[in-house]
């Protein structure tokens, strides 16, 4: 059953280019949205009961015949699946209207689905190498998606992204190779078991460094972040949302966390490096975002900053820190997607991404303005929205771990975050309406629907945070909290 998460989008991705010849718009729209909805429902209703007593390994079936594919599902992966499905659903329905002017919808959806298949596979894999392969699947699809508009900007961004990402993959693979050479296996269980019996701290440290660089590049941690401010703004808005909202988390943070916490075990050295990288990312991202004039570029830098928070939280390694990191990861997926979708709506309506040229759009695009305000406040950590709770938990975790300076810096970072989001708000939406945009209309239905959905989720998550924590985050945090133990349980499946 879990295999559906991979095979449905993959098969559909293969079919869509063919179907696209038949129906240019309707069928791709319908099928893609339906598939996403299906995955979302699957994640919420079918997959969740599976992990009632901890993680499981499920064997895939292909038309009744068992396959030698073993999918690992535990709280963490389920949580990621849910996040992916949720954001991709919002993105897909948003694309219905948005991608009209790009054309080649079938192709677009196919790539999107391939990317989702890659991410789902990544999340469900219980093996370092498989993880790498699906990482690449998602990455290849994302290169193409970034370049989808085929303008100069898009191609340039995509090229740099690809070239850096390829290096990152090489780092990861090299590390896997070494690990493979050391332990003789690549599955989580085998690696964890192997490392446990060997006393080779420096080799593991070296591999951790390579992983950190590789996944850090995927996750756009400073100083590996440089591709992101180019790639995310250049992509079509839904893809920006997808990349910033999910992809960097799945291929960067998830993979990193899974390996460091679940396979290698968090060492004090890693804690230090992760938290420092987190803080540096927070500040570099936030300060760089402050001076941006391109709305999407600002959001992209903001992603760097927010990923910093997530990594910082995971880096603490305490149960609360992990929980906080997960929560922030989820929240960031929600509000960053929301903000990118909003930016897309604005760009589509006004034809510009330059904040200077906007102004007073709240008047003509009320829904977009309101949802964007919600997103901005949420990301800055203003209560009662969801971002507040996760940042709160991060700071509590920092203080509990006696990292007072980091806590203060994290707090300061959130002030800067609010600062540039206020700049964004007053440049774009607040203020007097620019004459040029007198005739601008609110975004079309499906685009608005997507943003409203995400904005509502931001609010609801904020208000119902105990529920979210208990039902989605706690199982995931438990998995990570147990550290290497979980991986050892799956040995020899």
């Amino acid at each position: 059953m879990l295999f559906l998460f991979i095979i449905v989008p993959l098969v559909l991705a293969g079919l869509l280019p063919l179907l696209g010849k038949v129906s240019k718009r309707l069928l791709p729209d319908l099928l893609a949205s339906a598939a996403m909805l299906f995955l979302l429902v699957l994640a919420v209703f079918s997959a969740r009961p599976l992990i009632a007593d901890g993680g499981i390994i499920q064997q895939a079936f292909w038309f009744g015949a068992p396959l030698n594919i073993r999918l690992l599902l535990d709280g963490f992966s389920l949580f990621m699946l849910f996040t992916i499905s949720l954001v991709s659903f919002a993105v897909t329905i948003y694309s219905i209207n948005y991608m009209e002017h790009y054309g080649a919808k079938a192709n677009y959806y196919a790539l999107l689905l391939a990317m989702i298949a890659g991410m789902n596979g990544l999340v469900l894999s219980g093996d370092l190498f498989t993880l790498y392969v699906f990482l690449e699947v998602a990455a290849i699809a994302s290169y193409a998606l970034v370049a989808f508009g085929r303008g100069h900007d898009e191609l340039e961004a995509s090229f740099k992204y690809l070239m850096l990402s390829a290096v990152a993959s090489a780092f990861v693979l090299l590390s896997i190779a070494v690990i493979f050479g050391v332990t003789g296996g690549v599955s989580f269980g085998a690696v964890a078991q192997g490392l446990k019996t060997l006393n080779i701290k420096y080799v593991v440290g070296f591999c951790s460094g390579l992983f950190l660089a590789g996944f850090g590049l995927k996750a756009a941690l400073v100083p590996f972040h440089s591709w992101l401010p180019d790639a995310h703004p250049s992509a079509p808005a839904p893809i920006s949302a997808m990349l910033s909202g999910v992809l960097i988390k799945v291929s960067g943070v998830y993979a990193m966390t899974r390996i460091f916490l679940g396979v290698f075990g968090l060492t004090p050295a890693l804690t230090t490096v992760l938290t420092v990288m987190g803080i540096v990312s927070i500040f570099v991202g936030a300060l760089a975002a402050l001076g941006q004039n391109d709305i999407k570029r600002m959001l992209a830098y903001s992603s760097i900053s927010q990923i910093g928070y997530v990594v910082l939280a995971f880096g603490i390694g305490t149960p609360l820190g992990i929980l906080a990191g997960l929560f922030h990861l989820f929240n960031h997926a929600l509000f960053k997607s929301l903000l990118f979708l909003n930016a897309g709506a604005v760009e589509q309506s006004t034809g510009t991404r330059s904040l200077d040229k906007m102004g007073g759009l709240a008047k003509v695009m009320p829904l977009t303005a309101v949802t964007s305000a919600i997103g901005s406040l949420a990301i800055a950590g203003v209560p009662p929205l969801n971002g507040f709770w996760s940042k709160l938990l991060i700071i509590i975790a920092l203080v509990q771990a006696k990292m007072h300076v980091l806590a203060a810096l994290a707090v300061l970072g959130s002030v800067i975050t609010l600062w540039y989001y206020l700049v964004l708000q007053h440049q774009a939406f607040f203020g007097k309406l620019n004459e040029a945009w007198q005739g601008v209309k609110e975004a079309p239905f499906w685009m608005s629907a997507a943003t409203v959905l995400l904005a509502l989720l931001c609010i609801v998550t904020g208000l119902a945070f105990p529920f979210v924590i208990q039902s989605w985050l706690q199982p995931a945090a438990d998995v990570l909290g147990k550290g290497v133990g979980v991986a050892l349980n799956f040995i020899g499946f």
Partner: protein
Amino acid sequence: MHLFLLIGLLAFSILAILSRDLLKSAISLAVASIFLALVFFRMNAVYAGVFELSVVAGLITVLFITAITLTRGDGDVAESRGHRIVFPLFFLALAVVDLLVMKKLLGQIPAIQGSESGTFSQVLWNQRTFDLVGQVGAISAGVLAVLALFRRDDRHGNAASDGGDTGGRHE
């Protein structure tokens, strides 16, 4: 013998990088692939060797040459001549570091016995099935990517994202 093959691999890789002609570079790369394949054969990794020969030395070289031909004429970028001096220095430093570190780092790892069982195809099909799904995914993603990038332009209002209109970013 093994060392000789590795040195050959390295030498042609260097040649591929330093060569000022792209075609020569691509061909050097192919030769390097052949050397790598030979290394694989030496290590009894027949399947990997075959794949290396056919796919990398073959397919990828073809891809490269196609791309070079497609872009030739307007794509001759002069690399700096400084590489002749810089590269040896760099290489020397790298080699020294490599010598110093590698032994130290990996030398402490105890040799463990692998748990190899079954033939290659059994391993590939039974243990690494998931990877195959991933391969399918990667290939289809690659195909889709190429399709997307070389699609016929059927967008409406072509100018939307092309050129300078995508945002007034500061130069």
